[in-house]
């Protein structure tokens, strides 16, 4: 059997890991020691983990983050989430077909009291915001507990192989996300005031002021004075036919498989959503050697940074703006995707459908804050702050900065003599979270001598590392020092620092010193699974991905200074040298739509709204339309929508959309009541505090 693992990666180190045997429905397979079951199964090409008890529909990975339960499998007799359970030697893993059987237990389980812990500050989430806040607490000698549900701190930073935007001094711009994550984690791991609880999931902030936390499988009750909600965001989902098929999942799940576990979950990926998350996931896919068949964005323009979008386009990925997904096609897993053009009201334009073969569809249509801990704390009367995506959706650079502010605000709350937080910090926080500006045409510099950078950065975004690293001080930000657009004006020694640090890969270097008619163009390149070497002929493209001609590669190498980014040299005529930004690597044929019709049995007849309980849009629409129901609690009572293991995390938005489409007035719409627990926990965990 083919092993779906990433063998080489331009950025991530592929370590040799010990093989362990395990069984899947009696078949002996091989996994890597300690990897999650979901990754072990994906590595073996298994994507369907069972069939739903309600309608027999195929189930597989969805969040890969422990939040839902779609990846449930039976491991040694016990139903577990495959994405949160490490494989063990000779583990007997089975698919869940219908309702699982509750396993028997040997003897009487341990029963003991739950431990109660008090703390000044409880930080929920060890991502960029939580870690930045924790560093402030540490520096100001304030003690606290930081809980994170993973075994490694850094949150989603650990999944980010690309260089970061923002500013060098405030948010480590130019470093890769995973490096920033490691650096922040190191600062906290050695701290003397912050107790770090890894593998610890906050379950609820109870009314009596105690926070239930499952710490490494042991339930604890923590009483904090102050809570910082830095729990991040969750991904929004979409309604379309076939949306519950294994193979349809979010960018977070994809990045977890690919960048954390070095799994190659697919050869052919299609992306829905042209925000930064979708575009970057596409870039990560290419880095892992995965074809990106296309990306569809419903708006007329991608919402992500133009430099990110351009990076993907130049690699040869078609971007379909004003297009939306019609259906994921397949019976037990995704076989193809159908998209179509949409009009200004986002209605499908007839006869514009296109179908592409792919086995994975990545949904990246936005994020929403994990805000429940904030509400719960407020209801319990605990002073609460929120930072990062849990407070407002923005880039990680912004999360780090507002985490730092939140940390200091907490310090101030506990230590009256702390100085005021400078107003300029709040202003900077605003800049770091600002949305991209309009795309502006920029003039190509007229100069044709010496060596100098050509900056293809056409949009105001909060990003300035090029101006920080220039050894000659020749790159300036026009307008705002972080958000303005960079311009080159002055001397250049050809040190390549600006080229190497630009997260958008939007700076090239042109060298006329040897040959004015055929200058050497230096291009940044990070897609090592599509390698280039001296002598290769490549199709070079301009900033928007238009092919300018085929030219020879003179050489390619990464240096220590370039931090794994290869610098590729190409000789090209002076007439186009300054326009070249990259070269295309993905062949056009890869992205061609199929001409045959999708078989009837592969098209699902309705969209799923509640993926846990498999409730269709039709069921909900009927209740709204025919029965006049406007209370989601009543819909829940009748259909079970929102009553599943994920706890209403995914379907709330989809329900609201149906309500809006059915013209239910906002004031008449009653949202579901949220209740504990945040995730399902075995009853035995509450009966045993771990004491003998």
């Amino acid at each position, binding site marked *: 059997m083919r092993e779906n693992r990433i063998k080489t990666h331009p950025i991530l180190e592929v370590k040799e890991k010990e093989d362990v045997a395990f069984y899947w429905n009696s078949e002996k397979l091989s996994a890597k020691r300690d990897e999650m079951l979901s990754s072990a199964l994906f590595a073996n090409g298994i994507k369907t983990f069972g069939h739903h*008890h309600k309608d027999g529909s195929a189930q597989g990975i969805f969040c890969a983050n422990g939040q839902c339960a779609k990846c449930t499998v039976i491991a040694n007799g016990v139903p577990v989430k495959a994405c949160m359970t490490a494989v063990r030697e000779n583990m007997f893993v089975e698919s869940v077909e219908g309702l699982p*059987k*509750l*396993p*028997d237990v040997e003897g009487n389980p341990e029963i003991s009291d739950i431990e109660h812990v008090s703390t000044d500050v409880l930080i929920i989430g060890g991502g960029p915001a939580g870690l930045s806040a924790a560093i402030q607490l540490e520096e100001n000698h304030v003690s606290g507990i930081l809980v994170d549900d993973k075994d490694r701190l850094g949150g989603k930073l650990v999944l980010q192989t690309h260089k970061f935007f923002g500013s060098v001094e405030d948010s480590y711009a130019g470093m890769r996300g995973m490096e920033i994550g490691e650096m922040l984690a190191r600062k906290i791991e050695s701290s003397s005031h912050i107790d770090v609880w890894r593998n610890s999931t906050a379950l609820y902030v109870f009314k009596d002021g105690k926070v239930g936390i499952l710490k490494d499988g042991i339930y604890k009750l923590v009483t904090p004075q102050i809570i910082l909600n830095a729990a991040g965001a969750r991904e929004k989902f979409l309604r379309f036919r076939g949306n519950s098929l294994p193979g349809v999942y979010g960018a977070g799940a994809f990045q977890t498989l690919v960048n954390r576990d070095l799994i190659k979950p697919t050869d052919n990926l299609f992306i829905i959503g042209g925000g930064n998350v979708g575009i970057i996931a596409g870039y990560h896919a290419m880095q892992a050697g995965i074809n990106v068949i296309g990306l569809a964005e419903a708006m007329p323009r991608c919402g992500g940074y133009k430099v990110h979008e351009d990076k993907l386009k130049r690699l040869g990925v078609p971007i379909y703006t004003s297009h939306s997904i019609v259906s994921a096609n397949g019976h037990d897993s995704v076989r193809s995707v159908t998209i179509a053009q949409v009009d200004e009201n986002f209605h499908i334009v007839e006869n514009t459908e296109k179908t592409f073969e792919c086995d994975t569809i990545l949904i990246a249509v936005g994020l929403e804050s994990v805000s429940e801990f904030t509400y719960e704390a407020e209801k*319990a009367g605990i002073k609460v702050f929120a930072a990062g995506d849990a407070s407002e959706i923005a880039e990680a650079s912004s999360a780090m900065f507002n985490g730092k502010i939140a940390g200091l605000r907490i310090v101030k709350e506990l230590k009256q003599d702390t100085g005021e937080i400078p107003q300029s910090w709040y202003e900077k926080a605003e800049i770091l979270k600002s949305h991209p500006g309009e795309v502006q045409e920029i003039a190509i510099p007229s100069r044709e001598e010496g060596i100098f950078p050509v900056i293809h950065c056409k949009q105001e975004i909060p990003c300035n590392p090029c101006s920080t690293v220039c050894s000659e001080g020749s790159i300036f930000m026009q307008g705002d020092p972080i958000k303005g657009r960079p311009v080159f004006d002055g001397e250049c020694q050809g040190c390549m620092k600006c080229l190497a640090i630009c997260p958008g890969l939007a700076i090239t270097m042109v060298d006329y010193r040897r040959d004015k008619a055929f200058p050497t163009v230096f291009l940044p390149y990070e897609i090592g699974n599509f390698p280039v070497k001296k002598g290769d002929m490549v199709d070079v493209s301009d900033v928007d991905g238009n092919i300018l001609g085929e030219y020879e590669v003179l050489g390619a190498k990464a240096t220590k200074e370039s931090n794994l980014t290869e610098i590729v040299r190409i000789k090209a005529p002076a007439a186009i040298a300054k326009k070249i930004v990259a070269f295309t690597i993905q062949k056009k044929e890869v992205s061609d739509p199929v001409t045959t019709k999708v078989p009837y049995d592969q098209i699902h007849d309705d969209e799923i709204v509640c993926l846990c309980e498999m409730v269709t849009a039709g069921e909900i629409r009927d209740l709204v339309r025919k029965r006049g129901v406007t*209370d989601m609690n009543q819909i829940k009572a009748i259909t079970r929508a929102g009553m599943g293991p994920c706890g209403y995390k995914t379907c709330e938005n989809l329900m609201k959309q149906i309500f809006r489409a059915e013209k239910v007035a906002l004031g008449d719409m009653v949202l579901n009541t949220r209740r504990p627990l945040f995730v*399902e926990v075995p*009853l035995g965990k509450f009966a045993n505090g771990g004491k003998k």
Partner: protein
Amino acid sequence: MKTADVIIIGAGSVGVPAAMSLAKEKLDVLVIDSLPSPGQGQNKKAIGGIRATHSDKGKITTSLRSIEIFSTWKEIHGDDIGWISNGYSFPAYTEQDEKKLKELMVTQKSFNLNIEWLSPEEYQELVPGINMTGLRGSTYSPGDGSASPLLAINAFYFKSLSYGAQYRFNEKVTAIEPLKEGGFSITTDRDIYSCGRLINAAGNHAREIGRMAGVDLPVTPDSHEGAVSEPVQRFFGPMIVDLRPAMDPATEDSANYYFYQNSEGHVIFCLTPRHLIVGTESESTSVFLPQVAKRMVSLFPKLANLKVRRTWRGQYPMTPDGFPIVGILKENPGFINAVGMCGQGYMLGPGLGEILTRMVTGSLTSDDQDVLAHFDPYRDFSGVEQFK
């Protein structure tokens, strides 16, 4: 001004089945509730158990009729409300409990209830994996059962609509005035209504509504927390009620607790605090899960692996003696109270709805009179229910 034959305050466990029954008799019924849809008060907090094995004719007779309505619903009306005839069981681990239960069985059998005493081994067959240490046996009443409160109330609601009942949601009753010519004028925060008969089925808010009519009803809500698990294949039969109190200095002391596996495979459980928590606060506390988990896992070790999905907190609108208050107000015969269900409104509701209908239409049977004697608003409340 909208007028109706009967206005019911409260679209919950009692109000909705009463509206269904009244409307079926062609009465013009209007139900007013302060919440947005049916069953949003304490009905949805009910765990779903329905038993006739009480200790008095009032509850037994009413519940028997409820069981008939629940159990035949799908057959008659087509929609599945999750009824299963899984029975109730009260296992005894002390001599005292065994004695009490066996004594009670004599009364229950006198009402022709199907209840038997199982040996520990017989009980183990029904509940494989139950802790056998000290088990003396258990009652088992196979005629009792369970249904989904969520599905049932919506089934009753839609059925009542089809019979012509009307509902006003998101409206809070603010005043009740008797009219000179008989009947009442009811003012809400949105409108004014009038009716001939008024049924107070306001659950937790029964006392407030009573006060508007000048009567002080001894109904005090106290809190109970409950939870539901993931669904798994059926692994035990009946509702299990563990009557033993538990002293637990690490959490709180508790009285009984009970759990069953519903038609969809979820285990639903609830616990009675030993010291009543009075009030309508409905936010969950950190006490409940450790408290109930210790007890459930000791009783039935297998439950340790069962995942808890969701917890909630609701109230029992309690009366001093644990029996409902159902009857006509002496001062104003148009005013009917159907309150103080003491956590059993869900199982009493459908049967009671029919009795209320007969009360309105003046066709109470002698059996009804016997039932109502137990629920008499003017009784001496100093008695204590021997078994609940």
